[in-house]
């Protein structure tokens, strides 16, 4: 198995979900498709690789414990349900009394290699730390929405369902959040030049 996310079309996803009551193996491709997104979103929200792994395990354990009660209601329903669980687990984590504000670089998660050279691993982690710092400067709501959009890969409608918001509210936060993020990022880039 490699780390390239397995892409599932909406029809394939629907077929797997409907097979699951009779065939537990149908969950495996769903897991392989959603694991990278759940991990990426979680890692951006909590920052630490160890915490992201722990929370990701918690999330998927809750998923399989609850999967019998899931009702398929159309495209995007599973993603919405999955990320609602993810969102709630992370919210619980944030209520922890033992949050750290600064995460050492070696505790940050690895970044997908893409077309980067191996010796850029350190630079990639630094970039992650910078982007995450910029993200943390936003309001909690905008952090959630941008993370769900960019790292969990959800559409606005799905984000609205996860967070129990109006879709227009999601779109507004996304638009303003990106603007704020860009300005923060560009200020930081200028300061380091």
């Amino acid at each position: 198995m490699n780390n390239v996310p397995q892409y599932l079309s909406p029809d394939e996803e629907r077929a797997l979900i409907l097979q699951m009551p009779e065939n537990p193996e149908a969950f495996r491709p769903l897991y392989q498709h959603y694991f990278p997104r759940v991990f990426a979103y979680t890692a951006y929200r909590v920052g630490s690789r160890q915490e992201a792994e722990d929370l990701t395990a918690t999330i998927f354990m809750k998923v399989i414990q609850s999967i019998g009660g899931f009702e398929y209601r159309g495209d995007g329903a599973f993603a919405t349900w999955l990320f609602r669980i993810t969102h709630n687990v992370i919210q619980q984590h944030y209520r922890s009394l033992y949050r750290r504000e600064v995460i050492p670089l070696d505790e940050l998660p690895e970044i997908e290699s893409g077309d980067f050279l191996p010796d850029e691993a350190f630079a990639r982690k630094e970039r992650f730390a910078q982007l995450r710092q910029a993200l943390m400067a936003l309001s909690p709501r905008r952090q959630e929405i941008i993370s769900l959009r960019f790292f969990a890969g959800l559409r606005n409608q799905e984000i609205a369902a996860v967070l129990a918001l109006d879709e227009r509210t999601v779109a507004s936060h996304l638009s303003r959040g990106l603007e704020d993020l860009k300005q923060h990022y560009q200020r930081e880039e200028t300061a380091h030049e």
Partner: protein
Amino acid sequence: MNENQRPDESTLGPDDAFVYQLEHTRPKADRKFQQDLEHQLMAQLHTLSTHKRKEKPSMQYSITSRRTRFVRIAPVTWAATLTALMVGIISVALVLFRPEGSAFLSNVPPMAVQVENEGASIVIATQNIPAGTVITEAMIGVISLSSADLDELRSVETPPEFITDASLVIGETAAFNIEWFQPIAADQLGEPFDPCAQEGAACPEIPEDYFAINLPVALGAIEGLNATDRVDVLAAVDGQIRVVVEDVLLADVSAERITLAAPSWKHSILIWLYQSGESYALRLHTPESEAEVDLSPVEFTFTAPQELPEDYQFDLVIGVPASLGYTLTNLPASIDHIDFTGPEGMLNFWFEDIEVVSIVDGVNVTVRMPRADAENLEYLFNLEAQIQFIPDQALNSQP
């Protein structure tokens, strides 16, 4: 995804460089961790399937009614799971203390809100409970907290007295939205507050998806018009009388004010009008001025203001200042079905589900979309509206 098609970051403008960073700085998990977790999950699923559980697991679980099912996973992960569960229930974000003798507690029997100094059991929500929901046993649970944990719960903000007896919650109605794992207090129960049920309240009937605004009555501004009429709103803009917004609902008329109701983007223009202080006039809207919405697919080609990757998939956000909202009265087709956001005086229209046909030389973009949307998009481009490309992450992640 073909890595050779990824753009050279140096060719991108400053805004795109940032979005490129955001898209391509995706954390990845350790491969062994991912595989190990997969094995554990599949083993658990097969075990569940083999034992043919009598009761289906559900997202709605009650801590007091079900025995926790232990799963053999890595010790650090198990500890984190327990920790996440326990610390979550000590959440204090949404509760407030009330001082002793507060009127809010007057309807609650003292026994129900006593908390012993040695710690206590408190009732929490085990799922999100929307306001107006009658609370059932399946929606709540009872947890035990030490006195230290209770003190911690009360120390962050001013919390209420928590309910300790679940039977006092079952059958009650949630007066407000109650979140998962939120402790339930007495002042969260009861009928949801309805301002229009108050005596003398003025609550005109507003259609679903419409938003209302009250405007002061200007002399002669509403002559001959009545509540429930569809009207156009005129005002002086740049020294000329213009139709600022068309086809809104005159929901209510009184001696001092009128209530207009409209879809969100028109409502934003009305807000701008109110804030501008300009006088206005209303006229009856004539149905002949409405344009039909043709949703048959067409291809539309435009020049992007910035270079885009060849296989880029995106949503378009087109922004127009609310002060120029009057220009939208000449839109070729209705835009009411387009998602809209209105941050700080901007009218942002979200064109989603765009099918990108081709991107040539980075800026010549051909998309497929409904004819009405394409015509409106062309009109907005000619207004030199602000254009934002929001990447469609799900499609851009396809191999």
